[in-house]
């Protein structure tokens, strides 16, 4: 059924970190099945959720993301044997940290979406978008970002010097 599209005053920016084997493929399936979901999400592809450094999530919030979705293969289905287990443990600890620094955990979602679950991908993205829309824009980290410049590379001369002395 075609529903009239609502116009919203606030369109949240959602960044999704996904693994290439399951969730990226699941999102592709949503596409080939012509399912519809909000256009708020931007997908970043990783080989595996194990590759996703929690720093990227902070970075995303700093960069103006209002919500972050991290999604990979179901436990046991990892293409790289066990990368998603490491990711799961890492993010379990990381959530606590985020909560401690005052990020509303409603803005961050972890999930498993397999290559066969196009529908689940649509649900996840739609759900998170609506949820974050209700929460309003994320302000805290944007202000921080102005003060701090994080290059992503640690090849600063100071560090290099420190290493050379080891």
């Amino acid at each position: 059924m075609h529903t009239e599209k609502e116009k919203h005053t606030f369109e949240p920016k959602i960044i999704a970190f996904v693994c290439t084997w399951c969730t990226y493929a699941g999102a592709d399936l949503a596409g080939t099945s012509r399912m519809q979901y909000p256009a708020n999400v931007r997908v970043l592809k990783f080989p595996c959720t194990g590759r996703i450094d929690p720093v990227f999530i902070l970075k995303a919030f700093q960069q103006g993301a209002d919500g972050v979705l991290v999604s990979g293969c179901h436990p046991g289905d990892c293409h790289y044997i066990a990368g998603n287990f490491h990711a799961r443990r890492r993010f379990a600890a990381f959530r606590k940290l985020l909560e401690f620094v005052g990020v509303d955990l409603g803005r961050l979602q972890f999930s498993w979406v397999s290559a066969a679950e196009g529908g689940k991908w649509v649900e996840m993205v739609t759900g998170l978008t609506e949820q974050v829309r209700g929460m309003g824009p994320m302000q805290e980290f944007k202000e921080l970002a102005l003060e701090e410049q994080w290059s992503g590379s640690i090849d600063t001369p100071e560090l290099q010097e420190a290493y050379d002395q080891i």
Partner: protein
Amino acid sequence: MSRIGVFVCHCGENISRTVDVERVAAEVGKLPGVAFSTDYKYMCSDPGQGLLKKAIREERLSHVVVAACSPRMHEKTFRKAVESAGLNPFLCEMANIREHCSWVHEDRDEATVKAIEIVGMMVERVKKNRVLPTITVPVTKRSLVIGGGIAGIQAALDIADAGHEVVLVEREPSIGGHMAQLSETFPTLDCSQCIMTPKMVDVANHPRIKLYTYAEIEHVEGYIGNFQVTVRRKARSVIEEKCTGCGVCMEKCPVRKIPNTFDRDLGMRPAIYVPFPQAVPNTPVIDRENCTKFKTGKCGVCQKVCGPGAVDYEQEDRLIVEPVGAIVVATGFDLYSIEEKPKGSSIKGYGEFGHGRIPDVIDGMTFERLASASGPTGGKIMRPSDGREPKQIVFIQCVGSRAREKGISYCSKICCMYTAKHTMLYHHKVHDGQAYVFFMDARTPGKSYDEFWRRSIEEEEAVYIRGMVSRLYQKGDKIVVMGSDISVGVQVEIEADMVVLATAVQPRKGADTLAQKLGISYDKYHFYSEAHAKLRPVECATAGIYLAGACQGPKDIPDTVSQASAAAAKVMTLFARDQLEREPIVARVRETGCVGCFYCKKVCPYGAVEEKEIRDRQGNLVKVVAYVNPGVCGGCGTCQATCPSKSVELDGYTDEQIVAMIESL
């Protein structure tokens, strides 16, 4: 300064219908570093690729972004094109504006803005891409085939005939699979055993096929060209090398009343047995659960009567490691059971058909055993309850299949044809009997298939009734079938002597566990997923692993054999080369930064991290750092996210590249 070229594809109308591609090309062209941007109807076509190559040469492009479909679709295509124009292929990236944009949004404006952002993100990423050298690895020219049904047998024979060694692993004590259980096959009514058993013997006698029956895959490591597979050979309690297959042990075994699963529990077998007389290998196995010797310690008759002394009660499971370069998965199917709660399944049974409690309600495979000349009744159709010949027989199609309610919404593909075959076999054997078939649709696409189905109606006088059955119940020694004929619009009731259910085809139990060992993906029903539904139907997304037969989806015998031969051909293509190029997506350690904590070693799923000593010129040990063996590294990047000093980087997914993407948003 980079000179990036951006190529936006219309994909016919697939992208341009919702995304304003000209606007995308124009907007992206304004980004710093972008030297050239254009759009084209079909980028992946020959002229499209030509356009790309020409631009690289004429515009002296340093990097390329193709905004088109999913990289899973055409990344290889475009990287090849880039390479032929003289650029390193890893300086080309794809922006997915079809699956992730034009196909999932309706609002043209929104979709266009999103597409611009996606392409912009990839532009920022590609700036940080580095030249990556291709890595070559040797190929072990041996193949593993998992499953010894018709699919596994065909694949193993084809590969072995091409001159390569094959390890064939079968879970049951004999190869043969489901096809060995069938009576006759559609649409020719060939005797299944007659066409199957010679192939089984060929496998047993082939000099290049190493056969492990009663064995399972324990563990798989490695990657394309270089897998290490651990096989568990379960304790057979009979030494295969010594056994001559004389069968005396089976004759003398005092335990005789164990239902034979090969005969769908219609016949009995002893505790030491071969599943069926034509078994390959013809070596018995002791069923330890039912053997008196194993239960009470007393007996030992089989050991006493065995001339060659092949019976060994002490035998234990053995683990064998086999190095192989390619794997063919051919694990086949199971039939759906209408029981209340089929074990280990979320799929519901059929209460309305009595949950399988009415003895003369059987499934199609049981009917095959009844009709088989080598079956428990010698090919005579009789009721399991009292041995009488059924005079009124009802077949019900789509039991479990196309039943969203029960948890399966697919069509099992083979049931229409085998039910038509069953009505014929029944009519040939019970001349005064009448067969009825309740069906929804007859799906008979295949050479000579529809003619076969029509023959069952026009010549063999089967009565086909369009409409499903609501309920079965026992009334005296009859089974009342409550159905309806929707063509006429009235209810139909038949008092049947026997009811045969065409139950759905499901993947083998444990298919998910095996997939996890192999690192391949599967769908929600646990059928294994092919890399591309149309263009790569026999390969898994995981390189070096191929699919054959019903483990990938319901299939009949001709389709299964075709796919098995196709999988074999893929293996031969791989084995035609001595060296294999692999994606250089591997981790590298920056030794200056490494503090030698070896967290990376702990998390590496491939065991690719080694310890490397760094010495000064005098030979004094300076420090121990991590080293990633590029041949073993799988490229998951878990080490990089774990490294506390950020000293290991995954090529192609460096922090720089990812941060550049995040920052572009």
